[in-house]
């Protein structure tokens, strides 16, 4: 079986209106740029997107928002996107805000066959509304359920033909858990290498979680907050 597809068009085959997607990344760091651009081209609509953030107005998931392709966002923080805030306040966009740690763990749980788990995060807040509460170690915890997706789309630094992935720096973030939780997981990588070139001891996402892999045409890797100090 060959997991390698030639381009982003082939990678996203079967991605249709009204599907649930997971998209890796934290802010604009480690997002699957090529796949997002292709989704704009495809014009798929009514999407439910599980992603920690919603991009900025003119990059990342912001591009899909501008285009009204997203029906619902499941995120932890969406502060950098004015269009998002406008659509949310006007009611055009459904939004499910989830504590970041619970979001990460719910994706991992979805990939790991754990349908639900208890966490203290969100107890006593509106996040806990309608959720079961149980006290462990003298502390109330709420029951959170696993998340899965029709497609999980992740971005890695390097990948091999078996689908094994490694990420770079803090671009790892949500990508490994989401890779586990997709019915079909697509990886776009900066560099695709033959199986055997990556050290088996230092792989972040084992290929078993990845169904399709391709080398992205172009990675802009935009920086959201360029903070520097002058050279002395």
């Amino acid at each position, binding site marked *: 079986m060959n997991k390698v597809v030639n381009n982003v068009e082939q990678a996203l085959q079967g991605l249709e209106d009204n599907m649930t997607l997971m998209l890796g990344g934290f802010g604009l*760091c480690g997002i699957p740029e090529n796949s997002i651009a292709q989704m704009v081209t495809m014009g798929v609509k009514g999407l439910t997107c599980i992603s920690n953030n919603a991009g900025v107005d003119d990059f990342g998931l912001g591009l899909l928002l501008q285009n009204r392709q997203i029906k619902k966002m499941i995120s932890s923080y969406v502060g950098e996107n004015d269009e998002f*805030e406008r659509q949310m306040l006007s009611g055009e966009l459904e939004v499910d805000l989830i504590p*970041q740690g619970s979001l*990460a763990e719910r994706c991992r749980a979805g990939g790991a066959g754990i349908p639900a788990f208890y966490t*203290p*995060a969100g107890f006593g*807040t509106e996040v806990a509304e309608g959720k079961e509460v149980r006290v462990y170690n003298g502390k109330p915890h709420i029951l959170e359920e696993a998340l899965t997706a029709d497609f999980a789309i992740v971005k890695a630094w390097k990948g091999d033909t078996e689908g094994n992935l490694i990420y770079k720096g803090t671009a790892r973030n949500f990508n490994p858990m989401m890779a586990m939780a997709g019915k079909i997981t697509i990886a776009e990588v900066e560099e695709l290498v033959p199986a055997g070139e990556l050290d088996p001891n230092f792989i972040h996402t084992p290929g078993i979680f990845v169904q399709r892999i391709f080398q992205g045409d172009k990675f802009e890797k935009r920086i959201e907050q360029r903070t520097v100090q002058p050279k002395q």
Partner: protein
Amino acid sequence: MALDKNGIARRIAQELRDGWYVNLGIGIPTLVANYIPEGIEVEFQSENGILGMGPFPFDGEEDADLINAGKQTITARQGAVFFDSSTSFAMIRGQHVQLTVLGAMEVAQNGDIANWKIPGKMVKGMGGAMDLVASADNIIVAMMHTNRAGESKLLKSCSLPLTGVQCVSKIVTNLAVVEIRDNKFHLLERAPGVSVEEIKAATEGELVVPDHVPEMKL
């Protein structure tokens, strides 16, 4: 004279202990890293996936793949480590982080905190704040004592949607250091030149004032 943001950060830095792992929130908390006391080593965790965060990079050396939770470009110290988001919150939820410093819009005298939402207005989301406040044993809030309208942010009870319940241990503001115990605010220190009366006036919640309230040493 009331402290500025850097003064608040400097005072909070005095709470650091050698060997601690510390998570600093966005805003004033980030500044705490600039005032680590001599002879102490702490490691900063950023919940997007780095332990051992260093200062901002030199101009021209920034790396899009190396940011903090505020999406700012950063550097990694010697001995740093990168990890994924579920591991990051395993550290936080599992109480491996000894101190969390974060900002707030409101804190109540029972330790409740509100810092993520203004209904009908601000919908940025809670990010990692709910995990942090629900998990950490030691939470210090860094904020101004009053909001822009001059209203107290140290309240009998929070009016905004909560981020976490009964979790804040200490508050460091531009006016004072306040500890939360027995469902009351306890005044520990005054900012240099700030009177107990000023602090009382700026505190809506119940404030316990001991006979002697020392001035902060900065």
